[in-house]
């Protein structure tokens, strides 16, 4: 039985090799389809995962202030009233913001860490900034502050984190340096970070804060996560919808390939049946043919997509999937694969192809053996 499978598989492989042009074109298109789909899946999952990593240590509630519906710094004096709200374990002011570097046309994120801030006059920088500015520990780098005057800092260390999305464009500095650089007064903070133990109380606490400070805007971590999921999910959905047209074209191509047996192929099947192959043997050959093409395209497509997303910074799709929020310092996603993803991809590509080719294969297999004698 195994020998029979082996003989027919051997014969199938030599048949495929004999029609290099036709099968090569099919393999190319098929690989492209898998590559596009796999890239979208890998990218959205990796970005969602990065987002989850970013938010892993984020505070449960962030309190911002709005003025005329727009963001405004928060008075530090709010802290005492908010800390009094039941369920709030702690609250601390945070200082962070963005800085545009016109020299490299890059956006940086500046932040004052809660723990172990750099000494005044020194900064910790992300890998993206280190790369683009060519700055390493001990080097001096300078940025123009809010008043246009340059400030120089010595690089204390380059940040190495699990997620490059988190740290690639990050500059950490102490509170004094940050206030001097950004011009934010001493009695104001960017926002307030709250620690809350019981997730069931998030909503109630947010309501209480809004009652105390009607111009406040509490943001829950779960809401941010949900937004990320929705945005990435929507974007990948959009891409898949657009892409489904290509997938449909592929299905038609596969159908055409399988139904439009060339005269040579029909002749060959006729010969095989005439010399003693039965319908099931020809079906087995067609099955192996489909399997070889499917699996090769699947593996090639997945490997190429993996390299594209995780090593080539998903250069082909980043404008669609990253949207307006372009992070200028290039970052690489953390390589990540899971079984669910791969099986989804398998069912989206290999199964439709197989289903599409079953009927045509059967029709090819039932060619009358006496056809070659006519």
């Amino acid at each position, binding site marked *: *039985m*195994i*020998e*029979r499978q*082996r*003989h*027919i598989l051997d*014969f199938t492989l*030599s048949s495929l*090799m*004999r029609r290099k042009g036709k099968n090569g074109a099919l393999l190319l298109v098929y690989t492209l389809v898998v590559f596009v789909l796999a890239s979208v899946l890998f990218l959205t999952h990796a970005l969602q995962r990065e987002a989850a990593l970013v938010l892993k240590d984020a505070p449960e509630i962030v309190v911002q202030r709005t003025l005329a519906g727009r963001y405004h710094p928060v008075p530090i004096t709010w802290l005492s009233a908010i800390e009094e709200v039941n369920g709030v374990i702690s609250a601390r002011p945070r200082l962070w913001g963005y800085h545009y570097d016109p020299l490299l046309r890059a956006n940086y994120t500046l932040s004052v860490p809660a723990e172990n801030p750099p000494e005044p006059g020194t900064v910790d920088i992300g890998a993206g900034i280190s790369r683009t500015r060519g700055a390493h520990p001990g080097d001096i780098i300078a940025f123009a502050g809010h008043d246009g005057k340059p400030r120089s800092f010595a690089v204390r260390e380059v940040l190495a984190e699990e997620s490059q999305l988190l740290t690639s464009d990050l500059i950490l500095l102490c509170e004094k340096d940050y206030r001097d650089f950004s011009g934010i007064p001493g009695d104001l903070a960017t926002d307030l970070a709250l620690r809350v133990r019981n997730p069931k109380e998030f909503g109630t606490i947010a309501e209480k804060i809004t009652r105390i400070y009607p111009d406040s805007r509490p943001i829950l971590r779960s809401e941010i996560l949900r937004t990320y999921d929705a945005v990435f999910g929507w974007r990948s959905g959009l891409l898949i919808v657009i892409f489904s047209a290509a997938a449909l074209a592929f299905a038609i191509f596969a159908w055409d390939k399988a139904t439009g047996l060339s005269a*040579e192929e029909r*002749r*060959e099947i006729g*010969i*095989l*049946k*005439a*010399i*003693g*192959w*039965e*319908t*099931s*043997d020809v079906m087995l050959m067609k099955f192996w043919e489909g399997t070889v093409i499917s699996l090769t395209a699947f593996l090639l497509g997945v490997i190429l997509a993996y390299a594209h997303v995780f090593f080539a910074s998903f250069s082909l799709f980043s404008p669609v999937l990253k949207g307006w929020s372009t992070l200028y310092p290039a970052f690489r996603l953390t390589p990540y694969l899971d079984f669910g993803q791969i099986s989804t991809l398998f069912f989206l590509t290999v199964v439709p192809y197989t289903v599409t080719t079953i009927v045509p294969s059967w029709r090819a297999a039932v060619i*009358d*053996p*006496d056809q*070659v*004698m*006519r």
Partner: protein
Amino acid sequence: MISVRDISKVFNAGRPNEFTALERVSLDLQLNESTVFKGPSGSGKTTLLGLIGCMSRPSSGRIFVGEREITSLPERFLTEIRRSTFGFVFQQFNLIRGISALENVMAPAYPTGEKFSLLRARALEKLEMLDLGGRADARVEQLSGGEAQRVAIARALINDPAVIIADEPTAHLDSRLAHEFIGIMCELKGRGTTVIVASHDPIVYQSALADRVVEMRDGRVINEGSAA
């Protein structure tokens, strides 16, 4: 013995292009005897060979191979009989292009699941027998007409069939190669293989190969008897 009882074969039945290829043909073909069907194109020779060789079923009538009635057998059994009992040599040789002579010879035995080394050895033996041992790895496109014919014969012999069926085997051969073919068939006949040939080539039906000549026309047997 192969017995054909009152068989007819109608193509495209019920359609405007309906065509009766055979009409109420009855014959007994003895094993260890060579039979040549002769007659003009369209006389029904090839259709009859196809029916005897289990390639298709008659529209009516019965065919017996030995004691076994084959017309009502399911495809699987029909294929099994075709594979084990008959070897076919076609008019156009019908070799599969792009693969070697050896692979072509082995192809009929692939579905049997025989061990590769044994199958290969047997295929080489058949090719050696027909003086083609040195051409085993050549692609069939590179073979001359006579070599291709012999590869087709080797392929027909791979499953050691009791009966060789050849349809217009000399149609594409010059006289020398046609005589060579007759020589090979006579040798096989001498080894106990039954040979059934359809041909309108006098080299075939007037040769020593033809123990019996059956003349056909318009889908009917019009004359049968021993070779002249």
